[in-house]
């Protein structure tokens, strides 16, 4: 067995209520590591042969909650959620922070594999090797904060009763869905700790469709044994010391960006990306810091940055709203993107989105899309069930978010996510509404635009990513460079927070891997063999797609139309993505990753990587 792993996975079939343990060979773990890499492997092996027919919201889909060997060791523990995505119909490695991954590993498991569909709502309770499915009817329908409160109490009481002499039990960790997940909303998240979410991919809908309300874990063992604990200690210290030098990053987290990304790099979504520049000082981080942050530093297991902040609105119209930071993505998508420029309104909307179990990025995107259609008189007040969806009206957007979470009226259409909603409403209105949809392959684009050229994403970042609009997994060259999708695959497969890796050399993560597992791994080996294999698997499943949608690289390996329209304002006014430059970069990228001129992985590269069955399956789309 390779060191650094607990060595076991839970394999749960909700249809038959069977709970089994399973494992993977050393070879598989060496090649795919964990998290996102392993997710691609499991999904391909179990569903690959019939991928196009698998309904992401059907019982045949697999929900994966996976850790990696670095979870709990590399400062800032996370958990990777995956499965067939109801947004892209491919595979997304969607990670969220929190204590769950660490508890799971301390309980003796590296991950949980969930298939089938429960007859009645259930939650999974893991206490070391005691694992049980429990009735969740008492929390079904409850929002995120209430779910955490009820299940924390219930599970602690169970532990106190079962182990009366232990002393006081700390709360177990959990991941859960809110009402949006229960209602199979494609922009629903798997959440934790009120404000954390695995958003990209839409796995809240997968979990809800399985009638799995939560997975709760309490592990009393140590983290899995490592190869060189002294080296691990030194590396933890190194990462932390580097982080401690970055005062502003720690103090503000990404919270500074709600103002800065608009004002400085001019790449923030404003009113559904009609603009990307604003200079609204009312949205400056100083206003958040002094008006709503009740805690300056808030973080998860082992994190030196603690970039989250605890935001609380104690009085006024939005009294009772509680969330983190909000971090930049939430600030942007539930702020300027909706024409909102005050911390209080932003915190109110983010808190509501958390409670409903929605993704702030995907939902903020689809609400911005709807608001622009309202601005253009394409969607009327009647279409919106009486909601006057005016830019800047936080309460109107709150009303719409609730409709989406409960699939009421227009909410039922918008709950399909921006791309599918654009097709549906387009059909209704007999218009092409895709020019208003700022997304890539069913996944809304993160709040970092490409038009100014001053932010980190490049002109093919979203167009060629195997995770569509995901701003945490973007395509670029060189393949072994810091911004490469292949390097992101390592973060998501080792499963830790990449925010703590910014300050240290890129190779530290591989040193960490070696100290934990005892296996040598070079950047070259990772990028050009292992990660490239994961990328091909993800690309193959994305292109096979189905059952409701398929992607044609010739059409869909592209930026949303909006990014070709010149920026109308700000210091980079007039700038836009250049179609020829995109095509030229795409061509170079395809060549580098081994895709043919149509964007399909070549037989040559697939055989070289030992993926003959993938090669065969792709004949259908060649």
């Amino acid at each position, binding site marked *: 067995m390779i060191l650094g792993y607990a060595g076991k996975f839970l394999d749960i079939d909700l249809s038959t209520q069977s709970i089994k343990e399973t494992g993977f060979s050393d070879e598989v773990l060496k090649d795919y590591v964990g998290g996102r890499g392993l997710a691609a492997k499991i999904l391909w092996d179990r569903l690959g042969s019939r991928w196009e027919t698998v309904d992401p919201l059907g019982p045949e889909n697999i929900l994966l909650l996976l850790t990696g060997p670095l979870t*709990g060791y590399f400062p800032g523990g996370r958990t990777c959620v995956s499965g067939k995505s109801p947004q892209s119909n491919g595979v997304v490695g969607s990670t969220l922070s929190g204590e769950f991954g660490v508890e799971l590993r301390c309980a003796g498991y590296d991950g949980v594999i969930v298939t089938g569909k429960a007859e009645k709502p259930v939650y999974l309770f893991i206490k070391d090797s005691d694992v049980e499915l429990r009735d969740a009817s008492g929390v079904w329908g409850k929002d995120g904060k209430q779910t955490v409160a009820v299940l*924390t109490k219930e599970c602690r009481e169970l532990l106190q009763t079962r182990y009366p002499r232990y*002393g006081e039990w700390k709360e177990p960790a959990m991941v859960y869905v809110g009402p949006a997940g229960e209602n199979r909303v494609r922009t629903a998240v798997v959440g934790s700790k009120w404000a954390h979410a695995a958003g990209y991919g839409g796995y809240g809908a997968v979990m809800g469709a399985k009638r799995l309300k939560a997975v709760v874990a309490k592990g009393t063992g140590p983290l899995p044994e490592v190869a060189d604990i002294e080296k691990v200690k030194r590396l933890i210290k190194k990462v932390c010391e580097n982080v401690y030098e970055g005062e502003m990053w720690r103090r503000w987290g990404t919270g500074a960006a709600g103002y800065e990304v608009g004002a400085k790099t001019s790449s923030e979504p404003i009113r559904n990306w009609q603009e990307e520049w604003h200079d609204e000082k009312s949205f400056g981080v100083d206003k958040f810091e002094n008006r709503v942050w009740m805690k300056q530093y808030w973080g998860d*297991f082992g994190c030196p940055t603690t970039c989250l902040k605890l935001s609380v609105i104690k009085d006024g119209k939005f009294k009772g709203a509680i969330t983190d930071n909000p971090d930049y993505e939430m600030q942007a998508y539930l702020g300027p993107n909706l024409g909102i420029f005050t911390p209080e309104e932003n915190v109110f909307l983010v808190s509501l989105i958390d409670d409903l179990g929605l993704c702030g990025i995907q939902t903020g995107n689809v609400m911005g899309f709807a608001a622009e259609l309202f601005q253009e008189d394409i969607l009327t007040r009647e279409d919106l069930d009486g909601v006057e969806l005016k830019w800047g009206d936080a309460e109107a957007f709150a009303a719409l978010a609730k409709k989406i979470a409960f699939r009421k009226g227009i909410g039922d259409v918008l709950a399909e996510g921006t791309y599918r909603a654009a097709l549906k409403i387009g059909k209704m209105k007999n218009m092409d509404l895709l020019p208003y949809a700022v997304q890539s392959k069913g996944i809304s684009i993160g709040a970092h635009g490409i038009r100014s050229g001053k932010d980190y994403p490049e002109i093919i970042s979203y167009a060629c990513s195997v995770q569509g609009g995901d701003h945490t997994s973007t395509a670029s060259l060189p393949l072994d460079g810091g911004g490469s999708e292949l390097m992101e695959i390592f973060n998501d497969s080792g499963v830790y927070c990449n925010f703590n890796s910014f300050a240290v050399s890129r190779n530290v993560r591989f040193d960490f891997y070696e100290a934990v597992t005892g296996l040598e791994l070079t950047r070259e080996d990772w990028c050009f063999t292992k990660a490239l294999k994961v990328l091909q698997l993800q690309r193959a499943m994305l292109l096979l797609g189905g059952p409701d949608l398929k992607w044609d690289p010739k059409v869909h390996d592209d930026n949303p139309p909006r990014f070709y329209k010149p920026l109308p304002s700000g210091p980079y006014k007039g700038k836009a993505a250049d179609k020829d430059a995109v095509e030229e970069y795409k061509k170079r990228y395809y060549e580098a990753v081994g895709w043919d001129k149509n964007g399909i992985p070549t037989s040559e590269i697939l055989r070289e990587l030992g993926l003959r069955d993938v090669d065969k399956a792709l004949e259908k789309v060649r």
Partner: protein
Amino acid sequence: MTRKKEPIWIARELSRCSGCRKCEIACSLFHENRIWPDASMIRVFMLVPGLEFPHFCAQCEDYPCVKSCPVDALSISKRTGAVLVDKKTCIACGKCIDACPGRIPHMHPREKHVVICDLCHGNPQCVKVCQEGSWNVLRTVPRKDSAYKLYARKPEEITRDLAAKIYGKIGEEYL
């Protein structure tokens, strides 16, 4: 922090806790040479998100836990003032937990003895990491003739107070 010769105490400012659990990591690495949160002598409770705090021995001036032990497995370190557990003598009966006003001690998850903060022989590792990251929730100070017992409180009680401080009235519905 230099190694103190006189008894010490760990001053604590709970509402500043970020919930990073670095104290648990440092404690278990020092005592077990593993990252082992459940074996840590200091534990960060987060019964309600946002209301995290470290829960660990307050070294009450009258040491009720020591008095409650039926087998004399607990003693007071003359040098640091810490409660020391004699692992071989301890029978894991849990009487010290019941005697503690804050129900702070807990059982070791794998071995048959109770876990209580030993102040790391005078150089607490939890304080070190908390200060390195400038969270400064924990600080080592000389032990005085103070009412330390006030700090030995149950997790639910502390959570309730933190909720009032951080969330105000709205916090009550999440308790």
